[in-house]
């Protein structure tokens, strides 16, 4: 087999390099290095990052066999492993609710686990065992399709920096106490929750990502928040009961985030923000806000337009704006109140740093055109404004163009790019 005279090329590299090489291999190949030579026999057993996925075992059509193979493989690998395990990831659709997983987590809880990712298959959701809550050193936790039920004595993960819960069944109070029980939490991602009302109290939180049906979100104490991405789903009943609430959602959400740099709102986010009475006296300045992305803004709702205006006018340094119109063809009941633009918009407002504007799904409704006009007139350093009409609007495109061409531009450098086809993107 190997030439005895030639020197061994690789086994004498430092342990850290060999470990990083083995970590980059799929776990199956890493384990197989154990039969290469005597030096390699137990080299893989000290890996601290273990990632198990569907590629671990050979596929065959018989599902119980694959499940069995995978359980065997993981159990044996854990058994033979030596030393601490810092990262454990299990992403497979073949395993669902399996007693072996409980035992693996028990084993991991004794090995100083720091990062745990569990992504299991559809079907019966896995119930997270209580030994998970004993992992004191956990810094990163990601759970998909699990049932999460902390014991009453659970105070929180003191070292946790990143928490991601997707499609996790958990009581709302449990989430709140979990978030507040993790003082070092920097990144939070919650998705696919149904009707969740949340008060987020996280003094170190920097990145927030929410997606789902939230009835009430209040960023109670998140002073260090840097980037936020929210996708708010709403059904009609929720919309109704929200209409009746008097508390201003804008304040609740964006009231306490002075360091915000990036904001992205999807689906009904702007509508959510528009609910409630905004006290006109309050002026919050988002001096670090650079990128604003608001999707599916309905330009026929005055309140939503006001939210958008409020946001951009209180952000003196924002550089990039992306707005998409609501593509549902809503026929306006009343004639658009175009005087709003003349009366309520301050004339002396300039967007000193705004360079890029991207507007998509534009239907050409009067308010949209006025908004574009407003932007063009008040952005002295604007470089590009690209406009993509909504796919349903075929006749109104020429009209849009005619109006666009007429608008005054404050910036001599501004390019207006009209993209009839959304697939043609400018680099």
């Amino acid at each position, binding site marked *: *087999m*190997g*030439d*005895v005279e*030639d*020197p*061994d*090329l*690789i*086994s*004498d*590299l*430092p342990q*850290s*390099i060999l470990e*990083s*090489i*083995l970590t*980059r*291999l*799929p776990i*199956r*190949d890493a*384990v*197989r*290095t*154990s*039969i*290469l*030579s*005597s*030096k*390699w*026999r137990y080299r893989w057993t000290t890996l601290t990052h273990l990632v198990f996925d569907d590629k*671990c*075992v*050979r596929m065959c059509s*018989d599902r*119980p*066999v694959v499940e*069995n*193979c995978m*359980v*065997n*493989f993981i*159990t*044996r*690998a854990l*058994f*033979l492993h*030596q030393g601490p395990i810092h990262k454990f990831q299990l992403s497979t659709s073949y395993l669902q609710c399996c007693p*072996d997983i409980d*035992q693996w987590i028990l084993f991991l809880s004794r090995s100083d686990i720091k990062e745990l990712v569990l992504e299991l298959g559809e079907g019966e959701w896995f119930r997270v065992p209580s030994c998970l809550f004993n992992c004191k050193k956990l810094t990163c936790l990601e759970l998909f399709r699990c049932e999460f039920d902390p014991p009453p004595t659970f105070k929180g993960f003191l070292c946790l920096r990143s928490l991601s819960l997707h499609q996790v069944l958990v009581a709302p109070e449990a989430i709140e106490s979990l978030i507040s029980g993790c003082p070092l939490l920097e990144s939070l991602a919650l998705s696919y929750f149904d009707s969740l009302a949340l008060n987020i109290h996280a003094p170190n939180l920097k990145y927030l990502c929410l997606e789902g049906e939230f009835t009430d979100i209040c960023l109670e104490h998140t002073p260090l928040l840097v980037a936020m991405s929210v996708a708010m789903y709403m059904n009609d009943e929720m919309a109704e009961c929200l209409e009746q609430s008097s508390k201003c959602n804008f304040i609740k959400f964006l009231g306490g985030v002075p360091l915000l740099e990036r904001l992205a709102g999807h689906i009904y986010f702007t509508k959510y923000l528009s609910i409630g009475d905004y006290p006109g006296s309050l002026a919050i300045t988002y001096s670090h806000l650079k990128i604003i992305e608001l999707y599916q803004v309905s330009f026929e709702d005055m309140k939503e337009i006001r939210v958008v205006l409020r946001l951009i006018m209180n952000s003196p340094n924002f550089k990039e704006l992306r707005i998409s119109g609501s593509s549902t063809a809503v026929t306006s009941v009343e004639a658009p109140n175009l005087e709003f633009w003349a009366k309520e918009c301050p004339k002396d407002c300039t967007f000193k740093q705004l360079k890029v504007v991207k507007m998509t799904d534009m239907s050409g409704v009067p308010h949209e055109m006025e908004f574009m006009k407003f932007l063009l007139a008040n952005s002295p350093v604007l470089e590009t404004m690209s406009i993509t009409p909504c796919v349903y609007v075929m006749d109104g495109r020429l009209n849009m163009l005619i109006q666009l061409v007429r608008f005054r531009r404050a910036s001599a450098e501004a390019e207006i790019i009209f993209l009839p086809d959304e697939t043609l993107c400018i680099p």
Partner: protein
Amino acid sequence: MPEAGLAVVKPEMKSYIWLQTADGSVQQVEEEVAMFCPMICREIIQAGMGSSKNHAISLPQRVNPAILGLILDYCRFHQATGHSNKERKSFDEKFIRMDTKRLCELTSAADSLQLKPLVDLTSRALARIIEGKTPEEIRETFHLPDDLTEEEKLEPLGNITDDPRIRLLNRLYARKRRELREREKLKNVDVEDERADNRSVEDLLSFINGEDGDSKGGRNSKNKKKNRRRKEQAKYSSSNNPNENQKKESDTLPSVSPNDEVNDILAASPIKTSNFQDCSAVTFSPKLDFDDADIDDDLDPAMKEELDREVEDFARRLNSDWPERMQEILSLDPKKRPVPLSMNGHGTSCGYSGSFLHSFFLPSFFLFWFLMSICFGYSASW
């Protein structure tokens, strides 16, 4: 150009740093390029070295001049600010296209210079080389010595992910290779390969003494048979010989075993034998468990039956008792004598690797047996 002993920095000229590799050769390198390496950077700033030829920074031993050239090319490209991410990526891709030997040297050198981006790049390249290859290919690429014994290779540790049929084939091939190698070594009268020698001598002796009911020899033989059977069972991993299992189970305990093989196996997998979980033996199929009767692999029933049928033949041959076999042969029972396999003997590969053992030993065995029985037939103890 800077004078010897002085580095004159003029605005329009770059300043140079002197580097010395382990073999003594000294090179001049632009300062900004050299500063890209943290280790060199530290030497310049903290120790003030490198400004002249006499005070050249001596690089770690793992960096030879050719590799230093490569590293400096890398640094020169990446420290320049004008390149886009895409350009950097394509440079990296082209950069690591080199033979494996140089790649390993480069990794080692980059690590000693603490140039982390390059270490990451080369590690990724090495991982890509290893990924997807069979062990033989990997050994060939990196010139690794194939110094694991066959037992160690055949343990589930190494092959826990393969298809059971391929695993079976691998085991058969490995066993055949081992037999061939042992035959070679026996021909060379290699004393070091005790295993083969042991078996030849001790098997003969054990056979002779087995019928005397002697404890030591008997234990040896039974242990040895049990070892071999255990190994074979480990290879075939299907409980296809319940009768023989039961019979062997009632035999001696392996605890007092002077046999090297058992110690080898035990030594080879200390981790495995020390922990046993409560879950069914099925989950782990501990191949070296002494309660062999329960061996059940992760084969589903259909495959198991098929494999059972496949291996029953040679398993039966391999697992049978030496005395029994001898009785068979000596009784000249034409049905049971493995005529087509053993009489061919020397070089035929008929896939039944066990037959090699038989084929080699049987002729000499006959002779020896006759001789021994004559000489030792009188003594009751050994």
